[in-house]
C-alpha cells in the first residue's frame, strides 16, 4: 500500500456513505450457536434496545438442460437475529446482525446524525468480545465495508434534467474511459479486487453498480469499498479481528481518495447531510 497516511487525507462534511459495516464471517459449531442463542440474545440486549428477528424464505432453483426450475422441495427459511440501538430521534442507528456463520455490526448514515467511523469502532469493541466469548467462533476474515450512494440526494449537481447521473465525472474508474462518446448510461456494474498487502493478507474489493430503483427520480449508483483481512494459515482471534479495524479503515479512506474525482470530492466537502 502507499505511504499516504489517512491522518493527512482530507475529511468530508458530507461523504456519500450509506452505511458502514464491520463483519466477521466465521465457523461456529451448530451445538454452540443453537445451545447458546438465548444467552447471546440476553447479552446483546444489554447493549441494544431493540431485538428484531429477520427471516428469509429462500427458494432453491435447479437447472435442467439449461433451464432454471423450482426444486419441488429444499426451499428453506433462514432466521437471523438483529439488534438495534436507536438514535435520539428514534431511528435505527447501530445494528448488530447475528447469523449462524457471521457477525455484522452496522452503522447507518442518518440525516441529522454525524456518527462516523469512531462510533462503529466503539460498538465493535463492545460487541465482538461478548459474541466471541459466548459462541467460540473460528473467525476466518475481518471485513470493513463502506457503501456509498451517488444520487440526486448526495450529488445533485451531477444529475441532469433528464435524471441521468454523470458517472464519468464522479468516478475516476469511469472518467478515463478511452474513445469518444457523448456520455455514459446505465447499466453500471464494475468490480475488481486489489491486493493491498499479500504478506498481511489484506485485500480490497471495489464494486460500482447501478441501483435498480431510482432515487429522487434520478439514476443512482452504489460504490462499495470493502477492505478485508483474511489470513490463509490461521483463524483470527477476536482481539486480532477488532484490532484490524483501524488498519482496514485506513485502506478504505485512502482508496476513497483515489476512486472519486476531485470534482466529486469538492461536492462532498460542501454538502450538509
Amino acid at each position, binding site marked *: 500500500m502507499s505511504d499516504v497516511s489517512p491522518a493527512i487525507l482530507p475529511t468530508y462534511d458530507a461523504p456519500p456513505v450509506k452505511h458502514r459495516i464491520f463483519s466477521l464471517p466465521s465457523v461456529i459449531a451448530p451445538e454452540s450457536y443453537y445451545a447458546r442463542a438465548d444467552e447471546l440474545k440476553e447479552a446483546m440486549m444489554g447493549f441494544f434496545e431493540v431485538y428484531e428477528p429477520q427471516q428469509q424464505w429462500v427458494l432453491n432453483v435447479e437447472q435442467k438442460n439449461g433451464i432454471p426450475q423450482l426444486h419441488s422441495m429444499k426451499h428453506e427459511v433462514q432466521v437471523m437475529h438483529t439488534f438495534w440501538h436507536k438514535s435520539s430521534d428514534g431511528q435505527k442507528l447501530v445494528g448488530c446482525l447475528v447469523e449462524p456463520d457471521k457477525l455484522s455490526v452496522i452503522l447507518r448514515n442518518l440525516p441529522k446524525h454525524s456518527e462516523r467511523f469512531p462510533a462503529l469502532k466503539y460498538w465493535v469493541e463492545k460487541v465482538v468480545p461478548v459474541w466471541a466469548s459466548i459462541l467460540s467462533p473460528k473467525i476466518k476474515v475481518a*471485513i470493513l465495508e463502506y457503501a456509498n450512494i451517488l444520487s440526486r440526494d448526495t450529488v445533485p449537481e451531477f444529475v441532469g434534467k433528464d435524471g441521468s447521473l454523470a458517472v464519468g465525472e464522479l468516478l475516476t474508474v469511469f472518467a478515463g474511459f478511452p474513445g469518444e462518446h457523448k456520455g455514459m448510461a446505465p447499466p453500471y456494474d464494475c468490480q475488481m479486487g486489489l491486493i493491498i498487502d499479500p504478506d498481511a493478507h489484506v485485500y480490497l474489493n471495489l464494486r460500482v453498480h447501478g441501483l435498480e430503483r431510482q432515487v429522487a427520480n434520478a439514476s443512482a449508483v452504489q460504490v462499495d469499498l470493502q477492505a478485508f483481512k483474511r489470513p490463509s494459515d490461521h483463524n483470527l482471534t477476536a482481539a486480532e479481528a477488532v484490532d484490524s479495524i483501524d488498519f482496514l479503515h485506513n485502506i478504505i479512506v485512502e482508496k476513497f481518495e483515489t476512486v472519486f474525482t476531485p470534482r466529486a470530492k469538492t461536492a462532498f466537502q460542501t454538502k450538509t447531510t
Partner: protein
Amino acid sequence: MIAFTAGTTDAQVAPAYAGDREINRVVDQRFVGAGGSDIDASKLRTFEFPQTMFPVDGGKVLLRTYERLKLLIDERSETFAVEGWDIRLRCDQVHELPRHVVRKFLGLLAKANARILTPPEQLQWLSILDQVDFKQFSIDRAMPHYLEGTLISRRLGQPALVEWADGSRTSLHARVALPLTSLEPGDDFAAYVKLGKDNEVVSIESVSMLAAV
C-alpha cells in the same frame, strides 16, 4: 438459489460480502419480475427449517431432530404448519419455532411420563419420537448418579483408571478425570457422575474423599 426477504428495508444493510445472498436478492427480483404466473405455486408451499438442534434448559441440553422440520405454508391464513408436530404459527413468527418445538415436546413428555396422553396425543408422541434423538436427550438430561470408587491410577495427560464400588473398572478420559486431580492412587472417593451412552462417564462433580470422613 434465489431468495426473497420478508419485512423491512433494513435487510438491505446486509453487507455485500454476504456474496451469495446479495446476488440471490438481485436474481429474485428479476425472477419474480419475469413472470410470477409461470411459477408452480405448489412447489412454493414446503420449506425446510435448517435448525435441527433445539435448546432445552437454557441450552444445557439440546433436543436433536434427525431431519430438518418441514413447514407447510398456507397462503390464505399466512401461517405454516410443522409436519408431524401439530404446531401452527404465523409466517412472520417463524423465529419462535424453536421455542414451540421444545414446548410441544416437553408437554407431551410430561403427559407420557404421567401416562395421561389421549389417543391422538399418543399417536403424535410416537410420530415425534421417530423424529428426535430421544435416547441422547434422555442421557444428556439425566441427573448425575452418586457413585463411590477408588482411584487406581492417574497421570497428567493420561486416562485415569477408577474401580467403582461394584468392582467394575473404568478408564476415564484425562479431561473427564480433572476433578480427581487432588486424589492419590488408592484414595477412596464419592462423586456425582454423569453417564452417557453405554454408561460412558461424561462428567464427574462434587468429589469428596471417603477416607477423610
